[in-house]
């Protein structure tokens, strides 16, 4: 029983809580994706008619699964796993891209995962998260060049990539990082590194003399 909440001894072996959290986060985020898919059809309709590549600017929402999964569970594969489960759920609920979401989910998750791996799964700050979101966006854009926007002129394809990377960095990267911090404050992440760091910060700020005291 203690296995579930014991502090980690190895950084690669998944505890049960890690596995279940990746899956549950994936399911919850997949539902959010599904909701966003419906909204996207409306919003992107307007964006596409004004200036087509600008739809990349609002696509960062779909990259947030990998960032959150990685930042919470902090193990190799957590980012890919969360994003893929989220993609599966949003695909099973039904969407306008069919099974292409599975490919997208895998590619987006790998983008985030690669950045976390580059920092040897030791850095979990906002800059790393933003870089992960940006790379995920770039990966996804290249996939979409082949799957959806094959006949756009190359210049526009590049603009789309840049827009998607920026959106990934801001919405998924910075947004995901802020979201994980907010989740840590609720105590929901107490079994994870992000939760422990929150309590360390809280303890440090309560022992240091505050100006009001």
């Amino acid at each position, binding site marked *: 029983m203690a296995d579930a909440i014991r502090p980690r001894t190895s950084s690669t072996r*998944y505890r049960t809580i890690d596995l279940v959290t990746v899956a549950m986060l994936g399911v919850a985020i997949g539902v959010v994706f599904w909701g966003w898919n419906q909204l996207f059809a409306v919003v992107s309709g307007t964006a596409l008619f004004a200036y087509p590549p600008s739809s990349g600017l609002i696509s960062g929402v779909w990259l947030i699964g990998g960032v959150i999964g990685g930042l919470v569970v902090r193990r190799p594969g957590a980012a890919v796993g969360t994003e893929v489960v989220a993609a599966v759920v949003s695909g099973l609920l039904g969407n306008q891209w069919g099974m292409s979401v599975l490919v997208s989910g895998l590619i987006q998750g790998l983008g985030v995962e690669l950045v976390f791996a580059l920092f040897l799964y030791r850095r979990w700050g906002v800059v790393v998260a933003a870089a992960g979101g940006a790379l995920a966006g770039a990966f996804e854009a290249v996939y979409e060049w082949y799957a959806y926007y094959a006949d756009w002129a190359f210049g526009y394809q590049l603009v789309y990539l840049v827009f998607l990377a920026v959106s990934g960095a801001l919405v998924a990267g910075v947004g995901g990082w802020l979201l994980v911090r907010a989740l840590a404050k609720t105590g929901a992440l107490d079994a994870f590194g992000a939760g422990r760091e929150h309590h360390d910060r809280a303890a440090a700020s309560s022992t240091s003399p505050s100006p009001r005291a």
Partner: protein
Amino acid sequence: MRRFVRDANPLVLLAIGTLAIVASLAVRDLQTACLALGAYAVAGVVLLPSPRFALARFGAIAVASVSLVWSTWWLGGRDLEVALTAGLRIVVLALPGAVLAAYVDPSKLADQLGQRLRLPARPVVAFAAAMQRFGALRETWGQLDRTRRARGFGPTRSPLSRVRHAVSLAFALLVSALRDATRMSVAMDARGFASAQRRTWAEPAPWSRADSALLALGVALAAVPWLVR
């Protein structure tokens, strides 16, 4: 005929949907696009339990398709045929998977992933467990919604207020899902989930002859645009 898809192996349904992506890569002109789409349409009319449902899914994809026709026409040299081809290509890519996804049962899928594809058991079971909580998540969403309204934090009629309401519900849902995950993993480990040496599965993961036939059909359908182009 019509029960084939409903009883089909979820792996086969996912494979057919994924093969449609491969098919779409071969669509380079209008004729290929029409032939590929026609092949899928004929198969759908013959095999699907409810062709009307497929039409509903087609409606959602049509919106994406029209916007793609427009953007390809504008950014791809203002060639109508190229634009229409791009619009049809995304229908080939998305429609089979979007329709078949509705017939995938998550528990059966997990059984197949674990027992037939022999993926690592612990992640597969965690996935199945989380999918089972899906209904509970929806219930939680309803409870959170009612609670916020009852306490006077409900949304007004403005769209901005509705979005804010939805965002705060989504955050609360995420917290609830994480707490659920903690509770569930303690319960799973109490039953020896982490340290088990030998695992058994509650349900079998059968593969029938009809599954092989459906898979072959999926491969054939995906081959159509590659052969005629």
